[in-house]
């Protein structure tokens, strides 16, 4: 049971949502946007978060889109991860979605909720980073349409009161070779030791990581090194590991040394499978 009370709002439009947020924020109620709500409910139950009001954005039509238009795949933030898997509209995204939680939870867990959540893995963002997608954000002054690689740095950097409405991806990315690998300590439905999504475009392999560092990331420097066929594969991987954006995670799930070992082998497998060897 959630040990505190909160007000519940379900706006029917983007503007209603941002207006409601602004009003509640002015009243000091520390409102939270609520999508699938799985993370808010579990964290609230443990008193890890507190709010006096939630704003459920699932009633906003733009947040529920899942279609292709003008060669763009438009995915609403309220689309459940299972929908992405079942539709198979973007195979890499479908595969990446399957790595999050378990199947039943994914029936409620939304793509927007995963990307904007507080849990550090946020694996649903990886395919969007790889495919240079754009995000549609709603705020008080209107709609922003920005490349995700500009606005996602460790987390999705939103202005106060702003929320994620849609993710827009060139449909061509759904046709490129890809790999999506999650390594766990033991069970499949568990947080990852490491999780890597990769995609090959124009002969270059792109990599996005989760679980390696305390945040998900894609790094052009790392990709440059890993694609440099003039260097032996092992050296490439060692060099890439030397330029990670943060120290490798070291916790009860796995030591940093073990994670590094798994990471090296996984990168080697991916490069082999996607034809990136010397």
């Amino acid at each position, binding site marked *: 049971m959630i040990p505190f009370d909160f*007000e519940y709002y379900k706006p029917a439009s983007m503007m209603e949502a941002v207006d409601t947020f602004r009003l509640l924020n002015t009243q000091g109620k520390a409102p939270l946007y609520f999508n699938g709500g799985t993370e808010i409910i579990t964290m609230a139950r443990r008193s890890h978060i507190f709010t006096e009001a939630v704003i459920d954005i699932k009633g906003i039509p733009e947040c529920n889109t899942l279609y292709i238009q003008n060669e763009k795949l438009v995915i609403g933030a309220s689309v459940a991860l299972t929908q992405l898997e079942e539709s*198979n*509209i973007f195979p890499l995204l479908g*595969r990446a979605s399957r790595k999050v939680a378990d199947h*039943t*939870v994914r029936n409620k867990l939304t793509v927007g909720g995963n990307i904007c959540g507080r849990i550090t893995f946020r694996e649903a963002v990886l395919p969007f980073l790889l495919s240079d997608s754009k995000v549609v954000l709603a705020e008080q002054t209107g709609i922003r349409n920005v490349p995700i690689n500009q606005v996602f740095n460790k987390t999705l950097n939103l202005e106060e009161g702003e929320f994620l409405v849609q993710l827009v991806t060139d449909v061509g990315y759904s046709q490129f070779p*890809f790999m999506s690998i999650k390594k766990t300590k033991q069970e499949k*439905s568990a947080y990852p030791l490491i999780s890597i999504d990769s995609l090959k475009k124009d002969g270059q392999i792109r990599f996005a990581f989760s679980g390696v560092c305390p945040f998900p990331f894609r790094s052009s420097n790392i990709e440059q090194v890993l694609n440099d066929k003039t260097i032996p594969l092992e050296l490439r991987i060692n060099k890439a590991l030397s330029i990670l954006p943060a120290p490798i995670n070291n916790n009860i799930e796995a030591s940093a040394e073990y994670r590094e070992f798994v990471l090296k082998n996984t990168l080697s497998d991916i490069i082999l499978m996607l034809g990136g060897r010397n």
Partner: protein
Amino acid sequence: MFVSLNKNKVPLEIDVNGEIKSIVARPADTLLYVLREQLSLTGAKPGCENGDCGACTVLVDGWPVKSCLMLAVEAIGHKIMTIEGLKDTPIQKSFIENWAFQCGYCTSGFIMNCYALSKIHPDANDEVIQEWLQSNLCRCTSYEEIKKAVKSVLSKNNSSNPKSDHHHSSLGINVRDNRRDVKMNYTIQSGDSFYLIAQKYNIPLNELIRANPQIDNPEHIFPGQIIDIPLSSCSQVPSRYRLPDPYPERRVVGKNPYYAQLIFDDYAGKVSETTAIMQYIHHHMEMEATPSWQEVADLEEGIAIVEMLHLDMLGEIIIHLGASPYYHDGRQQPWTPQFIAYHSFDPCAQLRADIQSEYDAIHQYQAHIEVIQDPFIQALLARIIKDEEFHIKLFSEKLAKFCGEIISPNP
């Protein structure tokens, strides 16, 4: 509609097991709490209350959801089903027959999940079963028995719904000479191999390799590559009664009950593949009794088989859209023989009726393409229209030859 609820207890109405229930709940109350404490539906069990164990699983619009991870207010406007809403279902019987429980605490959650699986993926393979069942924990470790129970129900589904050879056996005709591959596109997924794909579609591995000469080495395929799947279940369709173009991959952008309703009209509505099949088979049998009409009788039979292929595709689309192609599920109007233009013992009238049926079908498909904003479904319907246009041409040729009538191209 903008919904606003204060933080105190508020009266709400939710649809549980087909009944509208009035409750009084805080917005912060979980669905699990309300089901148990207010509605006394204690089948959903509190386990971890953290979304891990699955003991509290209920169905929301047919999909399993952990009720500890859902607020009661979120249930407004959705159909909730708990274990109390299931009565004598095959999965319940199967759990008993296979001893798929010990202490029983996890059982209702498992059954709800398995029930949904059997409805949504009645032909689920081991990979799908495993993925779905990973959502629930059983501390007595009855996993093997639970898996047996699920597989028992799924195999019954599959045996009562045979995919292969049903076109052939239902008509008892010999079409060996007319065999030609009907193909479907398939996008390679991560982890796929030719062997796994062949297993998935129940086709011989060598047939799959033969159908994809563009793949130099079948052991080196990559996610994202598109290959052809020769549909063995459809390989009996006489090629001369359909166009040779491959059929698009049967997929949808996302679940959509409204689209499913529209496709159901094409599947088993008044103007539908079901109606066409029944009509053409009836005409086939009557014409076959008259030797001089044998040629037309063969045409009626061949086109009926092509319509069965269409029926099969539409049924799959309905499932992908999250609905069921069973026409007696209580929501759909049952198909009736009154939909058929029989015209008994008048072959020329029958041919005219068949042509009209094809035109009606095309108009309906075109209307649905306008409404259904799903490029995958639109592509499939457009491809089916091509077959129907071809059928009009074939029927018209026979009408001219046997009845001396010329049908205008666009009635």
